[in-house]
């Protein structure tokens, strides 16, 4: 565990209890019963699962962001570039369409399951292209990482177009508003069920990304130098597709699209590390958990008529941050 991991683990340890107490109804940590008759229930059934979900989703997005930046050797890369999040969103949107056909008993599971199926389809398409791209590098046909990224963008834009189509042709106004609300990403009204779906998948995803860590370090020197060090490009691509697919796919399946976490978090972590991609993955998971948890607690206590959607809030923070990164990059200080 490096210094950055310790820093963000401590921060998480502070944020987690604070997040449990914060909300429209503040809970007195020294006397839960005095905070109202339902305070214990609010804690156990609303705040705790929501906080755990924020930790799980944030950890996945943070780790995926660190791995993507290492893989693409670019500090502006984001897990969204693989097109897995839009594919998961497409799967989720499909569940609104298919709602009448799904037996009521399975209704609650249809959205996360179809979102995961969407992410899985995206991963399968990428894995097919990945095998091709890796073979290309070996036989000198060119392309490699750049080609693969473009393929990810193509999948993202196709999924985006199909999602837009599904919205335009929404079966009824209720479904339309549900889809739009859901796409904006939020942790409102989630339960332990969502935690149970996402946590194992995200944990598996982070483990897979950790397996790719040393190979990502080799890429610091460029693709050819990395291959000369024994890196197997096909294996690395598959690890990355699986790791990003699991973390991002599970995140979208339970929380909708939450952007910018993967982009922002590695930048918060990097100054505290030796800057090699392998030193970033675990602390980025912890920092991602902190960021999403903090942002979710803030949207909960903002005095607005309806709660600000988490996805919107993070985009509002993320876009200026991105601009700041671009300015810093122009000055060559990134």
């Amino acid at each position: 565990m490096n210094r950055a991991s310790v820093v963000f683990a401590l921060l998480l340890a502070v944020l987690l209890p604070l997040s449990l107490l914060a909300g429209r109804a503040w809970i007195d940590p020294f006397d839960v019963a005095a905070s109202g008759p339902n305070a214990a229930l609010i804690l156990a059934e609303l705040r705790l699962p929501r906080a755990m979900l924020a930790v799980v989703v944030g950890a996945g997005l943070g780790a995926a962001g660190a791995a993507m930046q290492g893989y693409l050797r670019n500090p502006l890369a984001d897990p969204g570039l693989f097109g897995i999040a839009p594919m998961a969103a497409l799967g989720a949107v499909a569940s609104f369409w298919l709602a009448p056909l799904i037996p009521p008993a399975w209704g609650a599971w249809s959205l996360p399951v179809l979102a995961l199926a969407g992410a899985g389809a995206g991963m399968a398409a990428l894995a097919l292209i990945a095998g091709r791209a890796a073979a290309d590098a070996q036989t000198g046909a060119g392309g490699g990482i750049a080609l693969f990224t473009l393929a990810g963008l193509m999948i993202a834009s196709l999924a985006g177009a199909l999602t837009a189509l599904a919205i335009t042709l929404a079966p009824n106004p209720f479904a339309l508003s549900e889809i739009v609300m859901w796409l904006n990403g939020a942790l409102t009204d989630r339960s332990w069920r969502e935690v149970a779906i996402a946590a194992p998948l995200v944990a598996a995803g982070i483990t897979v990304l950790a397996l790719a860590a040393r190979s990502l370090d080799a890429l610091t020197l460029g693709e050819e130098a990395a291959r000369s060090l024994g890196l197997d490009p096909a294996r690395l691509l598959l690890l990355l597709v699986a790791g990003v697919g699991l973390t991002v796919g599970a995140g979208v399946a339970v929380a909708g699209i939450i952007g910018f976490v993967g982009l922002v978090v590695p930048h918060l972590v990097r100054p505290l590390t030796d800057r090699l991609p392998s030193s970033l993955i675990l602390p980025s998971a912890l920092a991602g958990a902190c960021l999403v948890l903090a942002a979710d607690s803030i949207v909960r206590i903002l005095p607005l008529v309806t709660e600000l959607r988490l996805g919107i809030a993070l985009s509002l923070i993320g876009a200026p941050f991105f601009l700041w990164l671009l300015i810093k990059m122009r000055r060559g200080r990134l």
Partner: protein
Amino acid sequence: MLAADRLSLVRGGARVVDNLSARLEPGTITAIVGPNGAGKSSLLLGLAGLLAPASGQVTLDGSNLADMPPRTRAQAIGYLPQASDIAWDVAVENLVALGRMPWRDRGTEAIEAAIAALALEGLRQRPASRLSGGERARVLLARVLAGNPRWVLADEPLAALDLAHQLALVAHLRNCARAGQGVVVVVHDLALAMNHADRVLVLDGGRLVIDGAPETALSPEVIAQVWGVSAQWLGEPGARALASGSKRK
């Protein structure tokens, strides 16, 4: 021995190395020279096992490189690419340590030896972005040496270096050869090849024009034939300078 046997390489649909055979000896410096687009870098990639042959094969001590697991190959052959872009602002010590990847160990001794060989002791903690061109070239070569490869293959390691740094790096490569490592470098500067290589492969249009001692392989006749330039060597062996005249019609 690292040997190319009727090797042909294809990149981007074009045949860049054509039916080339050469046997390279350890303990020597071999220079690959030729005009732009002659296939020098592709040949080096092929010899490093990083570009699969379209036909023919590359063998290392009799074993086909294409059949070798990437890690085994990486332990035997160190490759220094031409582009020295370092993605993250990593400290020198950590960059050199990346050379241990094929061995999956910390290899402290090998890393220290590489740092000492290239006189990088004072730069250990310096981030890559604050290295001069000469320092960066030394760090990247140290990264290759940290892996203790039997072969060091370097693509234009001397380009973009000033005269003093060129000579210092050549001296490091000579030390590698003295220690029994095989050194293969792509160079543009014919005088460097003439003065410092034990053997020169001259390439043109993907074909091997001549393979021999520098004085033979880089004779004025060969230079005229391959580069289309009339030139002559001045000075004594080991300190030759190339006086090039007019471009031949």
